[in-house]
């Protein structure tokens, strides 16, 4: 598999974010041609990937033409001018329908852009559509989308991961230069790992959540899905920074991470901690994945990094704590979907009670996983159980946070696998929610601790040739260092192969 295999004739859309922005700014390609090519690739792939829930052809072409007109008029162009990007359906784009992957919101169109979307527009990006996801971002395979799952571009019989599976599949298949996802417990990093792209979740508070449908507010963070670390930095730089509409957004200034990555640096003096709980002592870690991760660690050491073992003794409780905190918050966040003001409202006979309006609307509108989590979260918060579940989970969360803080005092970043396994066949865990929850085992802790984390492709799996993701976790609000380390690894690893439209395994 080669880069060339991707390219449709004259299709510049497979270029990355940075490359595309440069080419358009230099006049080497027109933004409208880039947009048309991206839309053409969506036409070619979408039939079997189902990466999108909405494609805005007219809007994308119009935005691209405005970029071209601005360029012709000699007006200054934004840093992402003409770059086609997609937006996960959790994130509001004014005028585009938003479902959050749920029948509950089918037919609802938000009146305003999310802050991250407004910032992408201001930077000149061309918004091509909304990507598929697990319902309300609850899932690790995209199979919980009310509109059918996205499929993995490397093997259409396999899952794309989740919940930002559509964004990862679209990015891997070159449907746009990249896009935005949301990451509550690994929802950007895990599908990125399964689809062989870069998934970057910044520090909680670094990127505004205004206009982003809430799943678990204290864990949710907008992240990027791109085909390179430099592209991640470019999108991140455009969306990061404090926002008066989000009281939890952090006021610290954002370094221009994109400019920092123009050349690959070596890793001399960089201390990288490998949590033994994530590698040596990890249960359920696929042998091929383990092999590729160990090879990646060797590569990092060859580039001068001081790779050492560290311990995060409490992360083994992370999954349990995560599934209590996130379901508790979700149970409250999803109460607004009651059939009263917007979203699905059950058709009831006149005289039906208010309770039946709630029960029927929610019963019809939500899928089984969402219901499961609402029930779990409601239980975890209820009188008599609150202390044993929710409160205990918050205490564990604090311990996990402290583990990371301790480890990151002596290390510049932590490194390990993103997912214990490669993409699994569609339906393999569909009836085993607990097995599915365990797929997040390496990713949830970064959300519990609020830290920035990134998944970058390592070498493909030795047996299946499916993508394997290497995860880096950095210090809070030091996204710049994290991106530098990942960028150095990426350069040492060498070019990745991308799936071709013809590479179907059916």
């Amino acid at each position: 598999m080669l880069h060339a295999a991707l390219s449709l004739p004259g299709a510049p859309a497979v270029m990355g974010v940075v490359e595309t922005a440069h080419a358009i700014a230099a006049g080497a390609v027109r933004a409208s041609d880039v947009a048309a090519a991206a839309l053409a690739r969506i036409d070619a792939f979408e039939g079997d990937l189902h990466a999108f829930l909405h494609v805005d052809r007219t809007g994308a072409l119009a935005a691209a033409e405005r970029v071209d007109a601005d360029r012709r008029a000699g007006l200054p162009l934004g840093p992402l001018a003409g770059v086609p990007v997609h937006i996960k359906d959790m994130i509001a784009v004014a005028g585009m329908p938003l479902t959050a992957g749920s029948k509950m919101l089918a037919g609802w169109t938000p009146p305003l852009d999310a802050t991250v979307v407004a910032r992408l527009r201001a930077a000149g990006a061309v918004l091509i559509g909304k990507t598929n996801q697990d319902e309300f971002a609850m899932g690790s395979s995209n199979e919980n989308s009310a509109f059918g799952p996205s499929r993995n571009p490397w093997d259409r019989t396999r899952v794309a991961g989740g919940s930002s599976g559509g964004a990862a599949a679209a990015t891997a298949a070159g449907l746009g230069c990249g896009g935005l996802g949301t990451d509550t417990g690994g929802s950007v990093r895990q599908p990125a790992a399964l689809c062989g792209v870069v998934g970057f979740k910044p520090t909680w508070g670094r990127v505004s959540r205004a206009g982003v449908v809430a799943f678990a507010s204290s864990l949710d963070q907008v992240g990027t899905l791109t085909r390179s670390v430099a592209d991640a930095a470019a999108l991140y730089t455009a969306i990061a920074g404090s926002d008066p509409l989000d009281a939890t957004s952090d006021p610290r200034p954002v370094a221009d991470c994109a400019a920092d990555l123009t050349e690959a640096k070596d890793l001399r003096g960089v201390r990288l901690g490998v949590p033994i709980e994530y590698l040596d002592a990890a249960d359920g870690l696929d042998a091929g994945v383990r092999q590729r991760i160990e090879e990646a660690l060797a590569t990092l050491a060859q580039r001068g990094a001081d790779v050492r073992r560290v311990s995060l003794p409490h992360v083994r409780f992370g999954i349990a704590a995560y599934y209590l905190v996130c379901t508790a918050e979700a149970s409250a966040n999803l109460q607004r979907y009651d059939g009263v003001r917007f979203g699905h409202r059950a058709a009831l006979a006149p005289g039906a009670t208010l309770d039946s309006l709630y029960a029927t609307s929610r019963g019809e509108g939500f899928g089984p996983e969402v219901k499961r989590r609402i029930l779990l979260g409601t239980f975890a918060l209820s009188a008599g159980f609150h202390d044993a579940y929710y409160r205990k989970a918050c205490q564990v969360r604090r311990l996990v946070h402290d583990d990371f803080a301790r480890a990151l005092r002596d290390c510049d970043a932590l490194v390990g696998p993103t997912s214990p396994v490669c993409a699994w066949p569609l339906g393999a865990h569909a009836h085993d929610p607990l097995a599915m929850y365990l797929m997040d085992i390496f990713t949830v802790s970064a959300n519990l601790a609020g830290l920035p984390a990134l998944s970058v492709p390592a070498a493909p799996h030795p047996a299946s040739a499916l993508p394997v993701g290497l995860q880096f976790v950095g210090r809070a609000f030091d996204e710049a260092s994290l991106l530098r380390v990942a960028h150095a690894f990426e350069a040492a690893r060498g070019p990745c192969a991308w799936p071709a439209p013809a590479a179907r395994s059916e």
Partner: protein
Amino acid sequence: MAWQGVIGLEVHAQLRTRSKIFCACPTTFGAAPNAHTCPVCLGHPGALPVLNERAVRLAVVAGLALDCAIATRSRFDRKNYFYPDLPKGYQITQVTAPLCTGGHLDVATAAGVVRGRIHHIHLEEDAGKSIHDASPAGTLVDLNRAGTPLIEIVGEPDLRSADDAVAWLRELRAILRHTGVCDGNMEEGSLRCDANVSVHRPNAPFGTRCEIKNLNSFRAVRDAIAHEIERQQAVIDAGGVVLQQTRLWDAERSRTLPMRSKEEAHDYRYFPEPDLLPLHVAPELVAELRAALPELPAARRARWSAAWGVPAAAAAVLCDEPVRADAFERALGAGPAADLAAAFALFVTGQVQAAHQRSARTDADVDAALPVLLDVCARWVQGRLTNKMLADVLQSAFGGDAALGAELERALAQVGAVVTDAGALAPTVDAVLAEHADQAARYRAGHTPVLGFFVGQVMRRLGGRGDAQAVQRLLQQRLDQ
């Protein structure tokens, strides 16, 4: 031994901010339904709360005025329940770490000073309004009020009677108004009260309490508490047990009705609001607000009493509303008119208030007319207006269409001067004596109370404008001749 009521009030006060607590929508009362809404207060997916700084400052001011401790770090929580006028399905409030704790409010009652301690004061958002009887199609929801900033002032069960409770609430309202925290308008719902009521025998533990909701006037507070104390006594006297309940006051039928029992109580599943960071209030801000606290009503009343001898009851009425108290002080000024202060206070809270209540005039109109009213009062005190003339002036002025001040000046000019001059009074006096020669004879025979009859006759003929003392003097002179 007799049963004694045990009462603690929970008071919701709407903070005087221009915008809502978590969004920029206006808080003005009376707009078209749902005109003051946005994605935040409609609970749209993705909309986030941003705390109104002014609401925090006002809540701190309330805490300082009530001697509370101000937490440098407090926290918001979510209170979860489903209701159509609660757009997010949860109310953002403060449960575990409120902004103000402790504190107390002392009130003077007939039985002496009553101290009602304050457990805490917390910030929260109001819900919208469900209107059940406006449309045959079903319940309508108006979300203009959703997200209005409130403080809830939670009182300890330190009050012992319905009258204590009303006095405490009245003093609380005066403080909230004086500090600009809340306009205290109970009709518009900017001040609402729930009462926790139980009964016990003195020195015995408190009984089971009931919470009475929906008390939106002082009258409702007094009546509901008095009825609830009686109801609980009757239950116990009949050998029954008071159940822990939430009850609703039915003002029309003067009774409380059960709303829900302890078993039916909601499980609100409180947890920290993740969309808002903990609230930090800098000690510097607290110091700044403390230094800027205005004179509180109790201090003001004490000052009026010490400097001017204003009677306590009149001072209390005037200090209920700081705008009125300010206007009162402005009218008096610092000069010699202050001698009149006590009389003027009684005049304003007596005759003026009575005339005001019979008229359709606004408080502002009356406040603006206080300087002219002071002049009216001075004339009356100095005998330049008779009681009758005063009553005519007030009735005519309050009934007029122009501003009250202008109407008063017109009425004063119209009523003219009191007749004190003996020469001017003599013809009327002589005429009356001539017409009632028989009564004059009785007087002269020693039946002196007849003098009152003559004064009345003369005054009637003079249209009330005669100086009563001068008339009496002249009558006596003539009769004793």
